[in-house]
């Protein structure tokens, strides 16, 4: 980190040296008053060997300026010499005093500026985060997990002491990431220049925390900042820019604010999509985290020689150290260059040399090709027909701004009619107005939603809801009770659900919960929770990935939207027989025959999914084991 104050210290240092020079010259005038005569030399204690005149008088004068004790040696020297020595000593005291004061002041100012977050940043290739919300800490943690040296500059209007304190809390364990919190408005061009935006490698624009006292949408500063970025003269070195919007309704505005297309993450949209995917597939959140949380495996785009003429399915079987997910290429249309990425092409897709591979694998590993001896292992068996998730009854407990998007997602993924009950602390009128404002008269096509005002952390209320009659219960981080922390309410509700499950004799629904803090989720291990979505963390994962690899935007969009390709968890017996020793290659082949891609497995007796096993890994599957696949969503 380099720091520069705006008042030039060099000028002050220059003045000090000029003063020393002038007064040294003044002191040298003692030469003319007999400084180097034997009598004076004797008094000064100067050996007779020194008689070169100018040099000796210079050293004598300088010594008096820099060393106050030197004047005591003037005892019994001629009066004029004693006087000149005295003047030099006093002036020397003043200059040294000033110099010490200046140095102390300089250090103090630098410390103050550092504290206030108002230094000029001179980093290169830094990761710049504009805005402040709870996702910043997760982003920092993910960047640290990459094990690469990285300076991260934070610029926001938030209280710098609060920001520094929060950052210190996580930075304590960092070895690779250095954080430089700065205070200032990301909407001002001068502030963006101060944090060296043109030298940055990635810029993340975050939606500020909601200010209850303001009517202004928290997306407005983000949009202003984006407009400022549009005016920056990048000189051909434009960083990867990714934008977070809190409200999906502002997506159009964001697109208008920038002349260049940038990936935009709607946090409400993303969280609601993830919640509904978890409602459809138990264990989805864990799989999602394993793929995107910068752990062992991550989605990468890699170049591989010699793919020309190979079929996608053929290469997928041969890759030993990675799962082949799709292909990517660059195309130019109407003079505009576009990076295209497609997932899950048909196995007979013929690859060409200019295409890159989208793979799930360890970051540094090579894409090893290996032809397996058991490549033609044929196993005849009656595959179990796959039944697609068909939710018919869902209960949503709690309320926050993601609720409308969550209802929309249920609507989009519905195979048949879904009856949804929403319960929160808001009055019925609030719910009706909220829905009317957003739906603009359009009703949902595939869901019927009814609303109940009640306390979702009350045992009586939950008992009365007949929870076990639902297919899924979704607990939103509840902001309808402002006096309580949302995560605490979720934990309370989960405890009551645990009791209800213990009392229930038969079916109990899947339980999906949204948390704001991972520590809160850790408290809920002994509850019927099937999937936990830590919303700031999940959104941060996406923001961090996109800031590093913007081309992943289309992959994220695809994986989470209704109707496209999705990550799904399906029973093993839909593909391969149970209780039989077989290699993962067989699973790959079986999924390929369904136009799907096997990413790994989630074994019933394992706590975590196993992604990207080598093709030769042997399994003996039993009931309850699932295959994690990338598949086209089909509603039949």
């Amino acid at each position, binding site marked *: 980190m380099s720091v520069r104050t705006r008042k030039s210290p060099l000028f002050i240092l220059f003045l000090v040296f000029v003063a020393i020079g002038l007064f040294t010259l003044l002191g040298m005038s003692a030469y003319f008053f007999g400084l180097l005569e034997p009598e004076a030399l004797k008094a000064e204690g100067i050996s007779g060997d020194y008689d070169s005149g100018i040099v000796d008088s210079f050293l004598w004068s300088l010594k008096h300026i820099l060393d106050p004790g030197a004047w005591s040696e003037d005892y019994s020297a001629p009066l004029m010499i004693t006087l000149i020595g005295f003047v030099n000593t006093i002036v020397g005291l003043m200059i040294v005093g000033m110099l010490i004061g200046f140095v102390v002041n300089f250090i103090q100012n630098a410390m103050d500026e550092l504290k206030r977050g108002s230094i000029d940043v001179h980093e290169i290739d830094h990761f710049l985060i504009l805005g402040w919300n709870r996702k910043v800490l997760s982003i920092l943690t993910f960047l640290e997990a990459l094990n690469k040296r990285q300076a991260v500059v934070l610029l926001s209007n938030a209280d710098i002491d609060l920001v520094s304190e929060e950052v210190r809390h996580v930075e304590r364990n960092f070895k690779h990431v250095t954080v430089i919190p700065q205070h200032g408005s990301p909407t001002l061009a001068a502030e963006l220049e101060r944090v060296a935006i043109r030298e940055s490698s990635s810029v993340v624009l975050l939606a500020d925390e909601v200010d209850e006292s303001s009517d202004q949408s928290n997306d407005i500063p983000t949009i202003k900042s984006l407009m400022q970025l549009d005016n920056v003269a990048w000189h051909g070195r434009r960083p990867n820019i990714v934008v977070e919007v809190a409200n999906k309704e502002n997506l159009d505005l964001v697109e208008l604010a920038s002349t260049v297309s940038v990936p935009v993450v709607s946090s409400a949209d993303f969280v609601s999509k993830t919640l509904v995917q978890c409602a459809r597939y138990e264990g989805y959140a864990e799989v999602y985290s394993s793929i995107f949380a910068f752990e062992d495996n991550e989605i990468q785009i890699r170049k591989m020689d010699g793919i020309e003429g190979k079929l996608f399915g053929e290469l997928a079987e041969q890759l030993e150290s990675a799962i082949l997910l799709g292909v990517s*290429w660059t195309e130019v249309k109407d003079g505009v260059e576009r990076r295209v990425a*497609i997932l899950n092409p048909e196995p007979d897709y013929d690859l060409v040399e200019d295409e890159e591979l989208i793979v799930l694998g360890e970051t540094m590993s090579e894409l090893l090709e290996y032809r397996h001896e058991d490549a033609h292992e044929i196993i005849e068996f009656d595959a179990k027909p796959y039944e697609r998730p068909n939710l018919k009854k869902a209960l949503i407990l709690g309320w926050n701004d993601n609720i409308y998007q969550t209802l929309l997602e249920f609507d989009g993924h519905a195979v048949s009619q879904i009856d949804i009950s929403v319960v929160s602390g808001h009055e019925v009128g609030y719910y009706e107005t909220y829905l009317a404002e957003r739906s603009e008269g359009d009703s949902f096509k595939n869901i019927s939603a009814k609303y109940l005002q009640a306390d979702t952390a009350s045992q009586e209320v939950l008992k009365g809801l007949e929870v076990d009659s639902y297919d899924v219960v979704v607990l939103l981080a509840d902001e309808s009770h402002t006096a309580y922390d949302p995560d605490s309410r979720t934990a309370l509700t989960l405890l009551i659900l645990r009791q209800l499950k213990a009392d229930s004799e038969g079916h109990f629904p899947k339980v999906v919960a949204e948390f704001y803090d991972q520590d809160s989720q850790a408290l809920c291990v002994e509850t019927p929770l099937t999937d936990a979505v830590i919303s700031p963390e999940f959104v941060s994962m996406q923001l961090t990935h996109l800031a590093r690899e913007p081309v992943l935007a*289309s992959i994220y969009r695809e994986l989470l939207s209704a*109707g496209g390709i999705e990550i799904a968890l399906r029973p093993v017996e839909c593909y391969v027989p149970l209780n039989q020793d077989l290699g993962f290659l067989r699973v790959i082949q079986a999924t390929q025959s369904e136009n799907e891609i096997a990413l790994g497995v989630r074994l019933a007796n394992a706590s975590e999914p196993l992604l990207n096993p080598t093709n030769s890994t042997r399994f003996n599957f039993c009931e309850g084991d699932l295959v994690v696949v990338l598949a*086209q969503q089909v509603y039949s």
Partner: protein
Amino acid sequence: MSKILIVEDNEMNRDMLSRRLTRKGYEIEMAVDGQEGLDMMRSWTPDLVLMDMGLPVLDGWEATSQAKADTELSSIPIIALTAHAMEEDRQKALAAGADDFDTKPVNLAGLIEKIEKQLNG
């Protein structure tokens, strides 16, 4: 070179189909919703349309019905594409006026056979 219009809202499906058919020698243009599809049928006059059924703004069934009711467009063959693999969807697409039907994900060889049958039929 036969001109094919792909009407599909899903970006990846659109890109994949377009890439594969271009390599097979077809000239491809794309539209993202039913209304844009109808507009391009008028302005670009394709030899054939691959129409996804679940489209925003104007869905594929409605766009197909409107195209077949329009004397200017009715002669352009339309192959309906849908992820809904049920027989009733096939019947619904054919009832809307589609000349043929295929399910997603597509089998390219099978789709090309259907395309050629319509183009040469």
